[in-house]
């Protein structure tokens, strides 16, 4: 058993987008604040801070999670993935991100980081989704700019493009 006193900062070690990462946090510090203020990874946004809006959605050990409903000390030893981990290289966008850009699936961009994380995770597990499946997933997010239609379109386009890539690989093999 370890007891972490309230008034002290404690070492937290984890991997962030595949790279070892560490910092210090009081027990009460949320993962959102830890990522943004301790690590400087400001891609994860903070919206409602009670799990409703989905802006802070990240992956913890491969599972979608609300960073605002997670304590930094809870991710000690875990693998955390954030929106900063989506682009394949500096200056390049992932297929999903490029589809968002093409389809105007963002306007102010506040909700986008969380929605990209949900869709990235979802499309990996559901390579051939129906539109309703995408809409079901998006119930976990609030976007006040787009009306969701361009987001759904971008997701469906990205799914089709990824499926096309996969079939090309098969035929090349």
């Amino acid at each position, binding site marked *: *058993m*370890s*007891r972490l006193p309230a008034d002290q900062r404690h070492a937290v070690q984890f991997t962030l987008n595949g790279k070892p990462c560490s910092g210090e946090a009081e027990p*009460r510090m949320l993962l959102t604040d830890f990522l943004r203020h301790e690590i400087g990874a400001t891609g994860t946004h903070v919206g409602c801070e009670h799990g409703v809006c989905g802006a802070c959605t990240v992956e913890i050990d491969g599972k979608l999670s609300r960073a605002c*409903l997670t304590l930094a000390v809870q991710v000690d030893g875990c693998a955390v993935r954030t929106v900063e981990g989506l682009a394949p290289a500096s200056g390049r966008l992932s297929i999903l991100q490029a589809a968002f850009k093409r389809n105007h699936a963002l306007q102010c961009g506040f909700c986008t980081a969380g929605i990209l994380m*949900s869709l990235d995770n979802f499309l990996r597990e559901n390579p051939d989704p129906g539109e309703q499946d995408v809409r079901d997933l998006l119930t*976990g997010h609030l976007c006040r700019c787009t009306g969701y239609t361009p987001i759904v379109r971008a997701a469906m386009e990205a799914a089709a493009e990824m499926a096309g890539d996969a079939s090309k690989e098969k035929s090349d093999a």
Partner: protein
Amino acid sequence: MKPAAFDYIRAEHLDEVLDALAREGGDARIIAGGQSLMPMLNMRLAKPKTLIDIMRLGELARIECKGGNIIVGAGVRQATLLAWPELGEALPLAALALPWTGHVQTRSRGTVCGSIAHADPSAELPLVLCALGGEVHLRSANRRRRIAAQDFFAGMMATSRADDELIEAVSFPADQNRCAFREVARRHGDFAIVACAAVATKNGVRLAVGGVADMPVVREFPRLEASALGDVLNTFAYELDARDDVHASARYRRDLVRLIGAELMREVLP
């Protein structure tokens, strides 16, 4: 919107959890998936001095079938139960209701027992537990007890758990009878304005309603003709003592109870 300060205990053994609860009781709270407790902490509706994290205890993360019951440990996440291959066969009502419990992004961390512990009157899992006549397994340093779901819930976000008790598990009687579930919410996955579950019984149907009274309410109905059914559902809807709030009026809630109640009863008693 940040939690007040607390000590954090990362428990490795059950004894440590029970000892900490015995010592600190009402000043301590258990944290499992955190999907109900963390909003309470962030909004400072709860300000415990100590948080006891139980998610490293492998022994609590089990789903077991024993004596006709499905026993779900305190560490079992909602997504894990939903993905359990035997769920549809053993607990068809839970299979219907779980997709309405929060969102993919919260079910991945939130636990079944955590939702029961939180006792939100509009939450789906307390409703299912009551509809099936399940039990809550409580354990403290020096005693263990089981309590029927309907006796466990004591009002809005209030339960009969003592301060030194851990909800070790909940058990659902495996039930293959015909069942149905329906919910109305502003957004799929948000808290229900009204949620109803119906289970066929030997003589009729058991109807459970959430989101209206301050806890799930269960009522047995005999098999009735359509005309009589409207009357008893109307009486039932008024007995739930619905209130107006920002989401819906009391009248709308009664309307949903009458409408959904009748639909579900037709579904389970064709």
